[in-house]
């Protein structure tokens, strides 16, 4: 790794150390368990945003609304072994009340210091 990134990597590691929580990763493929990857428990940073009232539907003629909150799971790229998540995988927050679940909505671009996965609510 190029030396100029070292301090960023150190910072990412430090963030992980302070904000991480235990999560269980259930690898999925088309809604079924992915036979090629094992369920594993890791520590990662799980950020859940505030609820937003989004309109359902594409025009003003729709009446129902939906409460949505964006969530992200992130960890340092320097971690070894580096966990691999794919779209559709389930993430369970083991230390939170009710052990809620999210699904991976989007895989990140390969970033230099942190991998940030966009999550969607599931239960």
């Amino acid at each position, binding site marked *: 790794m190029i030396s100029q990134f070292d301090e960023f990597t150190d910072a990412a590691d430090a963030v992980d150390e302070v904000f991480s929580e235990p999560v*269980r990763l*259930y690898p*999925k493929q*088309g*809604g*079924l*368990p992915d036979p090629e990857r094992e*369920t594993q428990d890791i520590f990662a940073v799980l950020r*859940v*945003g*505030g*609820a*937003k*009232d*989004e309109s*359902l*539907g*594409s*025009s003003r*003629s*729709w*009446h*129902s*609304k*939906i*409460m*949505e*909150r*964006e*969530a992200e799971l992130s960890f340092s790229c320097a971690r070894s072994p580096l966990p691999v998540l794919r779209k559709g995988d*389930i993430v*369970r*927050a083991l230390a*939170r*009340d*009710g052990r*809620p*679940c999210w*699904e991976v*909505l989007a895989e990140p671009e390969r970033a230099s210091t942190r991998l940030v996965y966009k999550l*969607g*609510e*599931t*239960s």
Partner: protein
Amino acid sequence: MSLIMLAVGSCMVKALKGQTLAQDRVLQSDPTALEAKADGSLEAGPDGPFISVHVPDAVLNPQSTEQGIYANGIAEIYIETGVTAKMWHTDEDGKQVFEGVGFLPTSGNMVNLLGLLDRQIIDRLSADSQWADLLRQFFTGPAKVTRTGFISARGQRVSARQLKLSIPLVNEPQLDDLDEFFELRDAPLPEGETAKLPDVPFARFVWLLSTSENQQDRVLAEQIVGVLGGDLPEWAGLAQRMGFTRADMQAIAVGPADPDNPDTVFPDEGSALVESGAV
């Protein structure tokens, strides 16, 4: 929202409740159909596909021949359905289950599920059931049907559909539409006998509400009767229903000769118009 629009919404909800994949998750005019608690830790709101019925608008065209503003014109009825990824529950082994249906949580399945639900909805609204039959009696013509779909994945994967019916409604009910309701209410049948339901649709609607197991239905029935039950003389009821002015009433010689003195009469009370039944 008029009384007929209210009746249409209620009948629709009752015709659909427990009869489709959405089970009891049939809401009337609930803008927050899908909701979750703020900390994101617990789910709330419907835990499966839902139906939300809205009857917000009706337009009466000015070229209508109806008198007064007791006509409803054409109403827009929105039946929105939705399913979200949150409705699949992950068990401890990571298996994702959806209540009663073996669908995996793929977006294709979410859309297909709403397709099935759409068909169930139109079947239930067209069925020979108590509430669906009553509902259709408030319609006076064919519906224009518009279907729209929606998918999104902002904070969760969502799939939704909207079935919009633009359909002409009957005019607003008047107190005498409730005659059959009052007969049934005021002359209770002997124990064991079931009342014959009123023939007039609105009377039947109020009767069914007033005999419902749901306490809120019974409150609604009482309130409807209260709103309709003004103690007007016949001529005043007629004037009101037809949207007639005092001058109109004078011209057809119906009601008191001097509207401010109800005891005054036209010299030839019982004009030809009244006797012929033209008014």
